[in-house]
């Protein structure tokens, strides 16, 4: 995707002429063949099956019955699904800005000469390794309204904490917080790598020109971090839209559907109501949403990539 925009900027003939020998293309196909087999058999084929399934009415025990666009008509009028889309959007908006800003800030802190910098870099990545199932158990306990760690700490300063996971207003922020906790350090690593890739001369030149540290950040650091920002936000958004494990183990979609993200609703429709056809329709919707958001990001970052660092 970034390669596409980078290539588009070069005159086509120059690309074709440079260092290319006849027949060198088939090597490339050999290189991608195994992974292509995997992608086709285990990702694209299931995708096609889901698409086809969305045109059928199929409840586990009955035979699949062709239903045309019935599932999609049902979708248009399905208030619960629109509710879960709103919940998903809320979750994404709670997680992504916070964890991206925190990760970048941490990376900038850890890009300095600091005692024990390697130790800190490692510590911050530790949350990312936790198994989601185990993680949910631990955090449910931390969020416990009476003897959980958070409310006990709040009580020390005289604040009565909310009933986190049983309060519809707080459950989604609580789940989002766990995601931020788990992913910030991991994203920090990519920002750190990006920061270290920025040549010191650029900062020196900016300083010579009298740039303030804020100007250096906005004019040098951020633009040059563009490829990193692209990778981090694209993969994180795709992940956030598909959040499942944490919701499943922490709140099971509740209370009063306040954490029922779309992916969870799909799971419920398929495995609790056994309405496979409609579940497939819902996943087509989720796929479309993620696709549109990703395309928007590619356009946004593509326009800003003025450095050939991607």
């Amino acid at each position, binding site marked *: 995707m970034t390669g596409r925009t980078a290539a588009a900027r070069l005159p086509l003939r120059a690309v074709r002429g440079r260092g290319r020998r006849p027949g060198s293309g088939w090597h490339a196909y050999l290189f991608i063949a195994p992974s292509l087999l995997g992608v086709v058999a285990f990702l694209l084929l299931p995708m096609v099956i889901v698409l086809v399934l969305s045109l059928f009415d199929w409840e586990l025990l009955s035979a699949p019955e062709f239903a045309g666009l019935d599932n999609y008509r049902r979708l248009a009028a399905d208030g619960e699904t629109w509710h879960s889309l709103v919940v998903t959007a809320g979750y994404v908006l709670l997680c992504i800005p916070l964890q991206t800003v925190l990760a970048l800030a941490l990376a900038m802190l850890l890009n300095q000469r600091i005692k024990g910098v390697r130790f800190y870099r490692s510590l911050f990545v530790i949350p990312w390794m936790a198994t989601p199932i185990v993680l949910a158990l631990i955090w449910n306990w931390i969020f416990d309204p009476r003897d959980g760690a958070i409310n006990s700490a709040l009580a020390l300063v005289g604040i009565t904490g909310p009933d986190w996971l049983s309060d519809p207003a707080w459950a989604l922020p609580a789940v989002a917080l766990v995601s931020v906790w788990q992913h910030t350090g991991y994203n920090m690593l990519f920002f750190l790598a990006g920061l270290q890739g920025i040549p010191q001369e650029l900062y020196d030149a900016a300083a010579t020109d009298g740039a303030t540290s804020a100007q250096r950040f906005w004019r040098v650091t951020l633009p040059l971090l563009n490829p990193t920002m692209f990778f981090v936000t694209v993969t994180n958004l795709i992940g956030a839209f598909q959040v499942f494990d944490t919701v499943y183990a922490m709140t099971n979609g509740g209370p009063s559907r306040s954490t029922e993200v779309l992916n969870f609703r799909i799971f419920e429709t398929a495995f609790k109501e056994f309405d496979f056809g409609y579940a497939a329709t819902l996943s087509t919707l989720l796929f479309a949403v993620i696709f549109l958001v990703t395309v928007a990001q590619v356009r946004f970052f593509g326009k800003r990539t003025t450095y050939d660092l*991607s």
Partner: protein
Amino acid sequence: MTKRILVYAALAAGAFLSVFPYLLVVLTAVKTQAQLSSTPPWLPGWPPTTDNLAKMLGGDFPRYLLNTAVMTALLTAGQLVFTTFAAYAFARLRFTGRDVLFWLYVATMMVPSAVTMIPLFLIMRELDLVNTWYGLLAPYILGTPYGIFLMRQFFKSLPAGLEEAARIDGAGPMTILLRVLLPLCRPALGTLVIITVISSWNSFLWPLIITSGDDTRVITVAIATLKDGIGVDYHLMMAGSLIALAPMVAVFIFFQKHIVRSVVLTGLK
């Protein structure tokens, strides 16, 4: 000076937040049931007991650990080889349909995994691979789009001049990849290994669906079963969690060096 103090304060606070839940796991794993109810979660029970760990390790847990280790090793080996090949082609070679194919790969990352599980299961059933190692491994052993996306970004960051020089000396793509680029990628490969080891070790939904017997049961599924079996026995639960988490922490400490080196190397260019 004040700035330095603030920096250290921020780092210390962040570090504490990062490890606090792990501390709870360790503290709870060595408590007796009586200590569990008589002490707050963040205080140690005295004296610590190894009974919970012994009880977990005395049962079928070692077997599930071995299964998980075998699965993780095979998936990581596959990911390393096939992802590197594909990422190199997408980053450095020109071929018809490259961008279309790469878009397809990226598109597959957007597919909700909870639902592809159904068709995937149907496919495995057709192939008669349910409850076999082949079924468990097949969908992930040929590399993942995420890994390819990641490695492609790394390959693209290497200077083009390196390859050109080798090409003038008559090296083909394979030689260039293995002799010129891969040695420079070693740190990035370290990152890929960590990502794959951890995601394989933690994978839950697919093993849950595709396996049913002890021969292929992995640790995450065992813990989930445990949860249903023992209810709120947090001390046992945390002992199991500790056993599942410890190998990952060990792997991380071992590879942590590579991540830092990867960071340093990227900084050289």
